[in-house]
Every structure is written in structure tokens, then in C-alpha cells.
């Protein structure tokens, strides 16, 4: 007799029959009927019509029947809210039952019924259960608070359940503590600003005690909570680490990984000279290795995390290469991850082993995996210089196999090896050329064409080879077309006599017969270059290319540090910070590793985060360039031009140069189309009039900007006086001062460049680092003539807010790189937030009221604006000039209350209440915003506007 009988139906109609059975007098029959209902429910059938009949069965002393009815209620109460009320009485009664199991069951089920009317009745029983003498009931009630919060957050706060929940953290029973932590963490996630889990050394101690005694799942919650704590010094960090280490031996892999997270994070605070630091490093390796013997799904998550750990602290797993060797029956997702980690761990010591393995993988069945393996060999060559030769010979062996996709991948990676070690392995070109005909994938074809073009002087029949590609020019993909164009131009510059016809053919193909703008533009550039100044063309197209390095596939250090804080979470699986993919990105708190204390250089207090520039009010030059340099160059340095290409004056050159560099950097393993163009995309360095490349628009635009530059403070929002951002002594004689302004909807940066050096400066270009509001130059930096010594030039650089976004500390920090013919300089500055207030920031009255109510109270912040003698009307009009709009004005007990709204460029609304007392020169400003972290800066903006 099995439950499958519940699925059989009769002809009369299932629902009808069930109804009859549910109303039967016989208990046994009733129970069977409810079971049938549940069975239908599990397979997704709609049995909600039976609601009243099932609820009628609830009043019973048979626990199984009761549980079954509860299961039904949870599923269908929402669709029948009025009927669900019928059940309330039973719940309330059950919450008083002498049996703790029943009390817990009632409070648990009630929380799952997501009907507003029921929640009102739930409060009293829940309050009692939170203080129940039985820990089982208490721990169930703790979770119920989280459920209730999900349905009605306001109710939970009003009823004071959050405080009761916080008290439960000190409960005598570890399971209750764990559940309270879990519930609080879940609530905190939807309420980032509320300081629910206020951790201090005492509460940490309690958590650590509970950690040893609670269930495995509870341990995960507690460990994840611990990871958010910031120990006050390295001693506290060490003592927490000591108490967390035993968790590494837990059988539950999630516990292990959460423990690893805590250790990795707190380790940051320990001095590397400490004995304990070394011990800890040693202890971390075995559990990570053990994770790899678990089920494949667990392995996958573990591997994604190990990938981060290996990048952060390669020393932990450097001897464990072998555990990452691929087994042929591993699922493909595990194989690919293992491969990636193998390359990260590859070093001179183990390269022989790694290569032997990779070669083995290249003969596997799975095509995707084989391709990755071949690429991996190339990455090894670039990473471990001593192994390059061996890698190349391995690749040649693979090419000999003549397996089509292996050959193609091998050629793609050999191109990268040429870029890394020029003039070393060119002897293999002959072998590569033999395989020309078998290449059918664009990437491989493009790579091969690049090689032929680059080494045209060593390949006797280079012209024939390229010509053969030219025949089907229009059928090729863009990547190949671009590459072919560049390669033929290179060939022409190297052997001009015999290839004139060829180059003309390709140029006309590219410019006249192609619809692709990229291809056409590049064709025109080459054409003009070659026709105006072949010598310059040679310098540009055949310029020496910077070497590529292996670092490009690493995660950017700041991102890596952030991801380390998210070990074990989804963020660690995607290798993206939660803000990048968590829905609505509400509630995302930027996490950062704690700074190292105890070591010599930093005696800072732990609350100053290590990232970000110095938080001084004055713009300051960043002292250490190393970090920032990396950041700036890793930027997505897409062309800063948003409109049509600007005129090519000498200045332009610099900007594009910067662009060129970045392309090269991002090129390892990338497309040869980009690689080849690295040095050659630069347009003519002609100093003639800017009439080039079909963009007469350019100069016009430039003029326009000049015009606006002149009208600096005509209207629009307040503009602060210029301050020196980059002193001359820090920038080899270039002094930059500037300010920000906003007129009629556009933001600009007003700069004064002064040449205090003895030589002429030219080729100016500017780049911004990613910043909180996506500020980016909307046009390149236009300096029309070289800047003579002791001369200065005023420039207005239009900005837009469509650049990439990264939260900065402080929020309005902007890091800037300026380049000229001498060097690249970096500085950072703080921009006033009011340049971001948009013109349509006036909110409807009704809307204002609703929004004000809607934003939770903890998002409200109050500030004092001192010594301001304006009256309410003057304030209002002054603020209006900077796009802060007064929506209503009220007079309450002699005080003027101004209600104002403003909107930021990224769509964040800020609501303000400004209280002005006639006799008192200080105003009270209350700000409400869904993103409370901006409030402080809004206040600063208010103050600057009002006081000037």
C-alpha cells in the first residue's frame, strides 16, 4: 500500500469526491482525504476549492492530521485570505498548548501564512513564544520574526520584536542563538543601514561560545556573521582565528568554507612575521584539498573560491598542484575550473608536470576542454618564462597531430607567445604556414594573418599568402578583415616595391566596398597616412609594441580584496561583487578587508578603509602611484569621445596613445585584431589644419566648448573658485587647478593648465578612474596649441555621467590621470555633489508626501547649518539656482519649514526638510533618501551653496 493510490482519480470528478470524504465522520477517512489533497498539491494541481473543507479538519487532536492541514494552509491561505481567518483561533489556542512541539508548530505555521490580517493576530502569541521556557519554541519563534518581517517590516519594528531578537543572541541555548543570528542576518540583508547586528567584543565572545555547540547550519550563520566583524587589533583577530580554526575539520563543507572566509579576512590583520601567521597558512591547505573530494557540485563551488584564494595568497596551495589534475570523468564545469587553477599555480618548479598534463588533456574527447587546455599551454609560456621554449615545442607537437581545432587554438596562442618573446621563436613560422589552409575559425585566421603581417620580411611568399586571403575578403568576419587590412599595410611598408597593387586593392575593398564603419575608418586612416607621409606611417604602423604580461587574467586587486570578503557566497561563484548582480542592489554594503595592524607602516585605526585616496578636503596628489596606476590603466579606457570623432590636432594624439596602451594591456589571449592594431591605430601626427578623416564637425564643436568656457559663471549652479589640484612640483612643472560647474543640464570641469617648466608641453590627454557617479569626460581634452613655458591655458572639459561606476571612499572622490608629452600624472579631487543635481528634480507634492513616508526613518539624517543669515525666501531662490527645488513652505510656531527635493544624475531622489528660525542663524536640515550614504555629501553641498 503506497501513497501513489492518492493520485488515482475516479470519473465522478476528483474535487467532488474529495469534498465528500473530507466531510466524512470517520477520522481515518478524513485523514486519507487530506493526504490525497496534499498529494495533488505537490504535483502542482489546484485544489484550492477545497479550502473550507480542509480547514474544518484542523480542530483535531490527531497531530498528523493537524500537520497535514497546516501544510495545506501554508500553500493556499494567500489565495483565500478571508477563509484563512477561520484558522486563527486554532492557532492562538495551540500556542498555549502544554506540548512544546505543538506550540512551536503553531507559531511556525502562522508565520508561513502570508496574509496581512492573520499577522495582526500573530503578534501576541509570538511575543509569548519568544519568551517561552522551552528553547525549542524560542528558536522557532526567532525564525518567525524573520518571516513576519518579510511580510510586514513596519509591524515588526513597532512591536519591538527586533529588540527581543537581539536579546536572544545572549540566550543560554546555542541553537536559539544560532537561529537569532540567522534571523537577524536575513532581516539586515533587506535593511542595510539598520545596525541590527551590532557586534562588540562581548557579543563576539557569546557567538564564539555558541559556535562550538550549535548545529552545523547554525555554525554557518554564526561564522558568516563573525566575518562582518572588524576586530580592534591584531591580538583580537588572532584569538578569534584560534577559536574558529577547529571548524576547518567539520564534515559539512559549507561550515569549512565559511570558516575559511573568517580566517582569510582576519589574517589580513596579522603580521606576516608572526609564527601564528605561518601556522594558520599551513592549516588552511588540507581542508581546501578535502573539499575537492566531495560531490562534483560542491567541488565546483569550492574551486571557484579556491581560484580567489590562490590569487590572494598563492602560498597556501603552492604544493598541492596535483589535486587539481583533471580526471576524465569529471563534469566539464569542474574540468575547466581545475584547469584555470592549474595555470595560476604553475611555477618554474612544477611546470614540467603541468605541461605533461596539459598535453594529455589536449587529446581528450571534449572539444571545449581541449581548446582550453591548448590555450592553457600558451598562458603557461607567458607566465613562466623558463618554460616558454618547452611550451612552444609542445604546441608544435600538437600542431603535428593535425586535429583541426587543436591546430587553430595552438596558432592563436603562439601569436601571444610572439608578442611576449619577440625575436625568439620565429623559426616555427614555417610550420605554422603549412597549416594555413586548415584554418576556418575567424580567431585563428586573424592570428595567422597577424603573424604573417608582423613577420612579413621573413616569409618569402607573404604577399602570396595574404593575397590568397584577400580573394574572399567580403565573406570574412570583421575581425579577420581588420587584421588583413593591417597586415597588408605592414607588408607594404616592409616591401613597398612588390606589393603596391595589393595594398591598393585592400584599401579600396575596405573603404569602398565595405559597410562596416570600423573597417572603413581604419582603411581611410591608413590611406591618408600612406599618401601624406610614408615615413610617419612607418613609425606608426611598425612601432615597437609593448610586451604583454600574464597579469591580465588576474582579478583587479581591489575587487579581489572585496571578493575575499564574500568567500562562500554567490559573489564568489560569479567573481563579481554583489552590487553587480544582486537584484536592485539594495542592501549592498561595500565590504573591505581589514587593514593590517601591528606591522610597521600602518598605525591607523581599523575604521579607515584601506581603499580610496586620502580623505582630505583639499584635493591632494596621491602619494603612491603604484596602486592607482594599476587602477587607471585597468579602466575600460574606451574612447572618451561620445560624439563623432574629434578633429585630429596634435593634441588628439595623446588621447589615442593612452587608448592604445590600454588596448595592448587587455590583449593577452585576446583577439589579434586588437593586438595588431595596438601600435597602428594612431592617426596621423600631422600638425596641419584639423580637416582630417571626414569630421569637420570636430573643430566646430571645439569652438562651442571654448565659448562655454568663457561664460563660466553666467547662470546655473554655484561654482566654487578654482583650487590647485596638482601642484607643479609633483608633476614636472605642470600645474593644474580647477573647479566643477553645472550649466543648463551639462556638467563641466573648468581647468587651468599652467606650464611652470622650461620646456614646451603638448599632447595633453585626460582620463578619469571609475567613480561613484560614473563621471567621465564627454570630449577629449582640447589644448589647441603647445603650451609654452610660463603660459597657462583655460579649458572647459564637458563631462557626462555615463562612465563606469565604482563606489569610492569618500563618495565624491574623483581620481584623474593627465598625460602630456613629458609623463602621466595622477591626482584626486573631491567634486561638490550639487553639480549632479538635475533640472527635473522637482517632485509632485503628493508624491513628496508619499515618498517621505515611504522611506524608513533610519534613513533620515539631521545636520546643522551654522551661521547663515538668509531668510527663507532667499534660501529657497538660492537653492533653486542649484536645482534644489522647494515644494512647500510652512510656518510652524514662528519657524519656517521648507520642504525640498532634488534628484541626482543616477536617479536617486533626496528629500529635505529645512527648518529656519528667524532669530537663530543655524538651520536644521533633515535629509531622507533611500541611499543614506549620500546624505552627508548633500549636506556639504547645501552648506557651500548657502554660504556663497
Amino acid at each position, binding site marked *: 500500500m*503506497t*501513497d*501513489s493510490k*492518492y*493520485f488515482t482519480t475516479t470519473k465522478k470528478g476528483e474535487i467532488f469526491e474529495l469534498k465528500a470524504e473530507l466531510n466524512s465522520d470517520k477520522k481515518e477517512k478524513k485523514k486519507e482525504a487530506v493526504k490525497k489533497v496534499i*498529494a495533488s498539491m*505537490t*504535483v*502542482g494541481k489546484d485544489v484550492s476549492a477545497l479550502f473550507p473543507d480542509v480547514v474544518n479538519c484542523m480542530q483535531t487532536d490527531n*497531530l*498528523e*492530521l493537524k500537520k497535514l492541514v497546516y*501544510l495545506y494552509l501554508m*500553500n493556499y491561505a*494567500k489565495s483565500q485570505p478571508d477563509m484563512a481567518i477561520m484558522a486563527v483561533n486554532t492557532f492562538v489556542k495551540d500556542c498555549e498548548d502544554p506540548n512544546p*512541539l505543538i506550540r512551536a508548530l503553531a507559531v511556525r505555521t502562522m508565520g508561513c501564512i502570508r496574509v496581512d490580517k492573520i499577522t495582526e493576530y500573530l503578534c501576541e502569541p509570538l511575543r509569548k513564544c519568544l519568551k517561552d521556557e522551552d*528553547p525549542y519554541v524560542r528558536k*522557532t519563534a526567532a*525564525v*518567525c520574526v524573520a518571516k513576519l518581517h518579510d511580510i510586514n517590516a513596519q509591524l515588526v519594528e513597532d512591536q519591538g520584536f527586533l529588540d527581543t531578537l537581539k536579546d536572544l543572541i545572549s540566550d543560554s541555548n546555542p541553537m536559539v542563538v544560532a537561529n537569532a543570528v540567522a534571523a537577524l542576518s*536575513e532581516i539586515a*540583508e533587506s535593511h542595510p543601514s539598520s545596525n541590527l547586528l551590532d557586534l562588540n567584543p562581548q557579543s563576539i565572545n557569546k557567538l564564539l561560545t555558541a559556535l562550538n555547540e550549535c548545529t552545523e*547550519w547554525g555554525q*554557518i550563520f554564526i561564522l*558568516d556573521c563573525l566575518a562582518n566583524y572588524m576586530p580592534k587589533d591584531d591580538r583580537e583577530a588572532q584569538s578569534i582565528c584560534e577559536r574558529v580554526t*577547529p571548524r576547518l*575539520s*567539520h*564534515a*559539512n*563543507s*559549507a561550515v569549512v568554507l*565559511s570558516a575559511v572566509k573568517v580566517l582569510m579576512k582576519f589574517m589580513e590583520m596579522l603580521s606576516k612575521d608572526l609564527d601564528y601567521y605561518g601556522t594558520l597558512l599551513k592549516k588552511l591547505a588540507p*581542508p581546501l*584539498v*578535502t573539499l575537492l*573530494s566531495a*560531490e*562534483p557540485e*560542491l567541488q565546483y*563551488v*569550492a574551486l571557484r573560491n579556491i581560484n580567489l584564494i590562490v590569487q590572494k595568497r598563492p602560498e597556501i596551495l603552492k604544493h*598541492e598542484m*596535483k*589535486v587539481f*589534475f583533471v*580526471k*576524465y570523468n569529471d563534469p566539464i*564545469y569542474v574540468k575547466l575550473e581545475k584547469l584555470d587553477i592549474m595555470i595560476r599555480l604553475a611555477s618554474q618548479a612544477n611546470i614540467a608536470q603541468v605541461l*605533461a598534463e596539459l598535453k*594529455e588533456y589536449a*587529446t581528450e*574527447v571534449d572539444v571545449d576542454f581541449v581548446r582550453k587546455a591548448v590555450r592553457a599551454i600558451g598562458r603557461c609560456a607567458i607566465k613562466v618564462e623558463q618554460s616558454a621554449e618547452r611550451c612552444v615545442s609542445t604546441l608544435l607537437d600538437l600542431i603535428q*597531430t593535425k*586535429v583541426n581545432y587543436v591546430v587553430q587554438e595552438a596558432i592563436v596562442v603562439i601569436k601571444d607567445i610572439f608578442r611576449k618573446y619577440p625575436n625568439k621563436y620565429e623559426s616555427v613560422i614555417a610550420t605554422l604556414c603549412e597549416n594555413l589552409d586548415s584554418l576556418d575559425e575567424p580567431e585563428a585566421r586573424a592570428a595567422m594573418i597577424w603573424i604573417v603581417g608582423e613577420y612579413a620580411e621573413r616569409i618569402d611568399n607573404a604577399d602570396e599568402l595574404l593575397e590568397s586571403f584577400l580573394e574572399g575578403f567580403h565573406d570574412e568576419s570583421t575581425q579577420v578583415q581588420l587584421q588583413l587590412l593591417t597586415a597588408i599595410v605592414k607588408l607594404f611598408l616592409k616591401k613597398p616595391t612588390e606589393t603596391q597593387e595589393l595594398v591598393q586593392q585592400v584599401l579600396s575593398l575596405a573603404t569602398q566596398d565595405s559597410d562596416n564603419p570600423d573597417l572603413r575608418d581604419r582603411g581611410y586612416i591608413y590611406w591618408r597616412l600612406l599618401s601624406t607621409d610614408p615615413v610617419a606611417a612607418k613609425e606608426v604602423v611598425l612601432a615597437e609594441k609593448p610586451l604583454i604580461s600574464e597579469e591580465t587574467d588576474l582579478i583587479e586587486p581591489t575587487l579581489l580584496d572585496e571578493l575575499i570578503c564574500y568567500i*562562500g*557566497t*554567490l*559573489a564568489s561563484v560569479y567573481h563579481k561583487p554583489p552590487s553587480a548582480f*544582486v537584484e536592485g542592489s539594495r542592501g549592498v554594503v561595500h565590504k573591505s578587508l581589514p587593514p593590517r595592524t601591528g606591522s610597521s607602516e600602518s598605525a591607523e585605526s581599523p575604521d579607515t578603509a584601506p581603499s580610496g585616496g586620502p580623505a582630505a578636503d583639499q584635493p591632494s596628489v596621491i602619494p603612491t602611484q603604484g596602486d592607482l596606476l594599476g587602477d587607471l590603466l585597468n579602466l575600460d579606457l574606451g574612447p572618451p569621445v561620445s560624439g563623432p570623432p574629434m578633429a585630429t590636432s596634435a593634441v588628439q594624439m595623446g588621447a589615442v596613445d593612452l587608448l592604445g596602451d590600454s588596448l595592448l594591456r587587455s590583449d593577452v589571449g585576446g583577439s589579434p585584431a586588437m593586438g595588431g592594431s595596438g601600435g597602428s591605430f594612431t592617426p596621423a601626427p600631422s600638425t596641419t589644419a584639423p580637416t582630417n578623416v571626414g569630421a569637420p564637425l570636430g573643430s566646430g564643436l571645439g569652438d562651442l566648448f571654448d565659448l562655454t568656457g568663457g561664460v563660466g559663471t553666467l547662470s546655473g549652479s554655484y561654482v566654487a573658485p578654482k583650487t590647485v589640484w596638482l601642484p607643479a612640483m609633483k608633476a614636472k612643472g605642470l600645474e593644474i587647478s580647477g573647479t566643477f560647474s553645472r550649466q543648463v543640464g551639462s556638467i563641466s570641469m573648468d581647468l587651468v593648465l599652467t606650464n611652470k617648466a622650461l620646456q614646451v608641453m603638448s599632447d595633453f590627454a585626460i582620463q578619469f578612474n571609475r567613480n561613484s557617479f560614473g563621471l567621465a569626460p564627454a570630449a577629449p581634452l582640447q589644448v589647441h596649441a603647445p603650451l609654452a613655458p610660463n603660459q597657462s591655458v583655460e579649458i572647459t572639459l564637458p563631462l557626462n555621467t555615463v562612465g563606469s561606476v565604482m563606489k569610492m571612499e569618500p563618495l565624491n572622490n574623483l581620481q584623474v590621470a593627465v598625460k602630456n608629452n613629458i609623463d602621466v600624472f595622477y591626482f584626486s579631487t573631491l567634486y561638490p555633489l550639487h553639480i549632479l543635481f538635475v533640472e527635473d528634480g522637482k517632485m509632485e507634492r503628493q508624491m513628496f508626501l508619499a515618498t517621505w513616508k515611504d522611506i524608513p526613518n533610519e534613513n533620515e539624517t539631521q545636520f546643522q547649518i551654522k551661521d547663515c543669515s538668509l531668510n527663507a525666501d532667499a534660501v529657497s531662490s538660492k537653492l533653486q539656482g542649484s536645482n534644489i527645488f522647494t515644494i512647500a513652505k510652512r510656518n510652524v510656531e514662528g519657524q519656517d519649514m521648507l520642504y525640498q527635493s532634488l534628484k541626482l544624475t543616477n536617479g536617486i531622489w533626496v528629500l529635505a526638510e529645512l527648518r529656519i528660525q528667524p532669530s537663530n542663524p543655524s538651520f536644521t536640515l533633515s535629509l531622507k533618501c533611500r541611499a543614506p550614504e549620500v546624505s552627508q555629501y548633500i549636506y556639504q553641498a547645501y552648506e557651500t551653496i548657502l554660504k556663497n
Partner: protein
Amino acid sequence: MIHSLFLINASGDIFLEKHWKSVVSRSVCDYFFEAQERASEAENVPPVIPTPHHYLLSVYRHKIFFVAVIQSEVPPLFVIEFLHRVVDTFQDYFGVCSEVIIKDNVVVVYEVLEEMLDNGFPLATESNILKELIKPPTILRTVVNTITGSTNVGDQLPTGQLSVVPWRRTGVKYTNNEAYFDVIEEIDAIIDKSGSTITAEIQGVIDACVKLTGMPDLTLSFMNPRLLDDVSFHPCVRFKRWESERILSFIPPDGNFRLLSYHVSAQNLVAIPVYVKHNISFRDSSSLGRFEITVGPKQTMMPKSVLNMTLTPSQGTHVFDPVTKLLSWDVGKINPQKLPSLKGSVSLQAGTSKPDENPTINLQFKIQQLAISGLKVNRLDMYGEKYKPFKGIKYMTKAGKFQVRT
């Protein structure tokens, strides 16, 4: 936390759904089906799939996909580990875990799932406790229940749930008091063409079956505890004692449980107990190839173009599946005097060139009364109870993922 669970069978039908918070429409599984379609085999479906509003985390066991739906940032290992626990619990309850058995016991399954999670937080996952809350179905109980009208839902709070030893119930009584420990080791290894070991490691576990009255307190010591430097314990083991004295001291759960699992890396490895001599060659000219294997292999994957194989074993039976290209050879017991071998010819698809990839031999074997790492239990003592238990220890070595490349 965990929002919902869907069980999906190999043909892509959702045959069970359970929601712990609000109901998530089953259309969310469409994203899973998409991923399933893209993956060549069921094993290759990625375990984490993002969708616009949810994340789908899945495990594939017993030809069933267990797909959990989550909405917020939850540790994925937590979810995956929990899903595996669900499978283990089903297996524990019903003996096997299959679509048929789950459908047959759908109400029990539903009740159990409800006990395991509350609002997506794990509630009771220890099988001891679950079994007290929801009794597993047995034929006898069903009969008794129908006669007496009693239920298979326990109406008392499980005793162990809140005690310091949540894994053990109180009031356990046995007439025969016994404690058995099985030391089982699996070797994972990759052997290359020439027969040298590329990598080898041992995954060991000690599974226990303890049926002792009352609250016994056991200590287990080893002859060579140094071997165990990478261990994970059942929560019952006192970690401090292990750290200081290298002794396992614990109050055991009642019944079957895994006391300890450990990992011994290649450095400490003793010789590999099995060797394979192979000679597999494909020839370019003819559509025939030679095949010869000596000693205990069991499974070989052949390249796609292989049509059939004509082989004669010296002992055991062999099967070649022309669809999956899988050759299995069940060797039986190995006699050291006369080594078993499998010899014959391989016929290839006419017209195709010889295959590029080499088949890999997958080995399965068992060696009784040997723990390959050399681990030995020294003694087992019991405190806290007066009676004398019957003790037993068994050793076994098995092949885990043992692969020989050719």
C-alpha cells in the same frame, strides 16, 4: 534562504515541488531546462544557474535533479550541502531514492521536507531526530496504523533535539550491545601510459554502527595517528581531545553514522596495489586494431568510431556497448599465479581515419582487510556504562576514481 525545491526526473518532468516561503512558479525551471539542453550529459549541467530574479542551485543524484530556488545572497555550499542531505535522508527513509519511491511516499516526503526547513532555515536534518518526528514507513507500521488508527507522526518533542548531544536520543536499550567500525579507504589515482603514478591520494572514512545501551562514552585510539593530518569529524567527536592527545573521544549517535573522514595525500602513499598492462593500438591502413589488457581493469571508454570488438578474456565476463562505446570487463577474483588478460581485435568504422583520442581505463577493485594508508586502530574503550560491549573492526580498500591512461 532556500525558497523552494523542485524535483525533476531525467525526462524533464517536475514531479514534486515544495515551497518554504511564498510560492515560486514552476516556470522558473524553464531556465534550468535550457541549461540542461545545452549540457551534453546530465552530469554536466552547471550547479549554479542565474535567472533574472532567482538563482537555481541543483544537484544530480540517482537520476533525479534536486533544484533549489533562492532569491537572495545565500552561501551556495550551504544549499548544495543541504540538498545532498535531503537525498541522504530519502535514502535512509526508503532504502533507495528514486522517482517511483518518492511518488509512492509523497506524503511522508512532504512531511519530512517540512520538518527539515522552516522559512528556508534548516530545522532538523539529523536522521535520528527526523525519524522520531516522522516515522519511516514499514509494512508492519502501515498495518498497525490502519488497525489502531495511530499515526506515523511522533507527537513528542524529540529528546535529542536540544540536549548537548543532539545526535543521540535518550533511553536507548539493546540486549546485545555491539559497536562495529569499518575503515574504508578509496584510492583516487591517475596512472600514465608508462605505468608511473601521476597523482594518487587516499580518501578514507570510518563508518560506525553502534548499538549500545544508555549513554556510552567511547574512546578510539590509533597505532599511527600521525597519518591523519587532514580530517573531518562527526560533530560528536571532541576536537580538543584530538588536538592534544590524538584520541577520538565521543558519545556516539545511535545506529549508523560516519565517525570520521580523512584524506591522505600522495606523499605518504604506499605502492599502488594494482597494475595494468595494456596494449591498445589502432592502425591507419586497415579498419582493425589490436587490443590487449592484463590484470584487473573493469571499464574502458572507446573512441566514437569504434564499431565493435572481438575479445577473449582469460577469465571473467566482458561486455561492449556499441552505443556508449563502453567496454566493461568484470574480472572476478585475481589469481596471482595466472594473471587475467583480455585480448582481441578492434574493428573500426570503415572510411574514418584512426581516432585521435586514447581510451582511458577506469579501474574498480576491492581489497579486504587492508587499509592502504597503513592506518590501524589500536583500541576502543567505553566509559559511562557498566556492560561489556562486543567490538569489531573491519578494514577495506577500494578504488575511487582510479584511471589508467593508454
